[in-house]
């Protein structure tokens, strides 16, 4: 292993400063008491107070959460099915089209996905609202779920499933009792990914939403188009805080698991000798 050179340290420092400084500044200025967001006028939490008074934001947050929970759950079910078909399904008519439809949404510009779904909903006369956003979000996030899950399934030792069949399981029981518990981490991260994608989506939601259901990104969008607003800074800080907490907690848990697994292996080795 080489020593970390000055060049490497510099590039990492500058790079991460670039990645994090904007967010750090956003967080700092959310505690600015001045309405003029770029002029520091002392510490205050008043924008958080105002944010919590703002029913429009709270309603939008509620709608967003509802959409995200429902669509990511649906997407996880459909995406896991799709992944299973892609990896284990063997040949069937239209397989190429199917895998194309799984991968295409990943690279599709959101404006096109949004536009096409909107035209569909209008075409079949479906009123736009929470339901249409859920349908739209499920469709594109199931593709992400399926990519995450299928990359896990590809490395999954197929003989485990065969062993379950050999011991008397029906194919469905083999999936339920063996495959699913083992790929569960991938399914969970697929769900989390779908959930964040849904929480985050502005463009597709703008196309598919109706007047009655405004999601948080749409609400933020209409506010920030007019420039920087201290309330949005406060809201952003809360969202960044939640995500940071979640990611750090998740990585600590997985680290602890890895340490435990290592300890188990050592214990096993001791048991052998």
């Amino acid at each position, binding site marked *: 292993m080489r020593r970390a050179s000055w060049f490497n340290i510099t590039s990492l420092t500058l790079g991460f400063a670039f990645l994090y400084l904007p967010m750090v500044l956003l967080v700092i200025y959310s505690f600015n008491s001045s309405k003029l967001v770029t002029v520091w006028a002392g510490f205050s939490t008043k924008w958080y107070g105002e944010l919590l008074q703002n029913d429009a934001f709270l309603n939008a947050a509620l709608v967003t959460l509802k959409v995200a929970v429902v669509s990511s759950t649906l997407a996880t079910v459909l995406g896991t099915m799709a992944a299973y078909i892609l990896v284990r399904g063997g040949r069937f008519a239209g397989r190429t089209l199917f895998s194309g439809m799984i991968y295409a949404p990943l690279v599709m510009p959101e404006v096109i996905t949004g536009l096409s779904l909107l035209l569909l909903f209008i075409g079949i006369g479906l009123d736009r609202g929470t339901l249409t956003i859920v349908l739209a979000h499920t469709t594109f996030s199931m593709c992400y779920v399926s990519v995450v899950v299928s990359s896990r399934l590809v490395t999954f*030792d197929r003989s485990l499933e*065969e062993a379950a*069949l*050999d*011991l*008397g399981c029906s194919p469905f*029981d083999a999936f339920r009792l063996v495959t699913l518990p*083992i790929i569960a981490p991938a399914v969970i991260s697929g769900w989390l990914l779908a959930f964040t994608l849904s929480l985050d989506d502005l463009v597709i939601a703008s196309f598919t939403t109706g007047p009655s259901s405004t999601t948080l990104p749409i609400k933020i969008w209409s506010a920030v188009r007019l420039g920087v607003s201290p309330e949005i800074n406060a809201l952003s800080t809360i969202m960044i805080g939640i995500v940071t907490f979640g990611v750090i907690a998740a990585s600590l848990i997985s680290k602890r698991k890895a340490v435990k697994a290592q300890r*188990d292996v050592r214990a*096993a080795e001791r048991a052998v000798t």
Partner: protein
Amino acid sequence: MSQPVFAPWDDPNEKPLIRFDDVTKRFGDFVAIDNLSLSIYESEFFALLGPSGCGKTTMMRMLAGFENPSAGKIELAGKNIAGVPPNKRAVNMMFQSYALFPHLSIWENIAFGLKRGDMTKADIAVRVEEMLKLTRLTKFAKRKPHQISGGQRQRVALARALAKAPKLLLLDEPLGALDKKLRQDTQFELMDIQESTGTTFVIVTHDQEEAMTVASRVAVMDEGQIIQVATPDRIYEAPNSVYVADFIGDVNIISGTVKAAGDEMYHLDWVANEAPLLAASDRTFSESQPAHLAIRPEKIAISVDKPTEMKNAVQGTVLDIAYLGNLSTYHVQLGGGQVIKAQTANTRRLSRRTITWEDSVWISWSATAGVLLER
């Protein structure tokens, strides 16, 4: 007191447990199994032996139900099992990777198959305990597979597959993942368990030593076909082809043409300026037929002086000596350039040995030491 010899394959009244009847298996254009017929009898420990890609694993997967034959039929206890899914077959398999369920404890792994049937909880517990005792795993029942050693995992896989008391147990390279010492111990353990449960075992392996050690009969396979099926000693002492002779153990092959030399005796002309070699054979050869003489190195004696009583003796120089501790193998180059391996047991201390590199020596063997082969 003599035990009756276990040899159902020699008894014409015995019904085979498994019968492959002109079975062919194709994957696309690739023929994995080529029109193969084979019978395996109850309580046998049957080994399918061959290099990777010879089709032995495909045969096993067809028995387990993961593949179906493209043509022909496979019978288990007289019933055609084509189309019966793996979960409905009275056949269990021990996987090469063991395929232990990582999220279940050892106890739950062994109970997994039992829970698929209609056994009561109490009966399952009794059976699992029985299997744990049989495989000496009682202490580890609560552990997860990654918390035990490789040898213990192998035993869990065996216990899990045996728990349902299958008519037939399939073992796919069962000892491949173990180191050499452990493998040897486990081979005997496997034989004990097979004997005490009376289950028919079919083992797939590429390790000839393993097949010879454990099996009642060995089938040597190559390119989707069975070359020879016989007991281990027959396979070793009386291979039916150069391929089998070469695959099992070490062998010298001398090629030439035969002429008759009396009752079941032949002379092999092999090089121009050497005397023909004398070999006994119960196969008949026609005059001037090309043939190969296969002789195991340990059946060839090496000496400094010309031996007088041996039928075949050839002179050469020592090219190389491989000292293996208990044995030494001499590579002797003959006048015609061919190198013959001769093996001697090192019953004396090294310093007392008289033969060394570049020495001129005689190698010799009796007429019955080798096997005369057509192909």
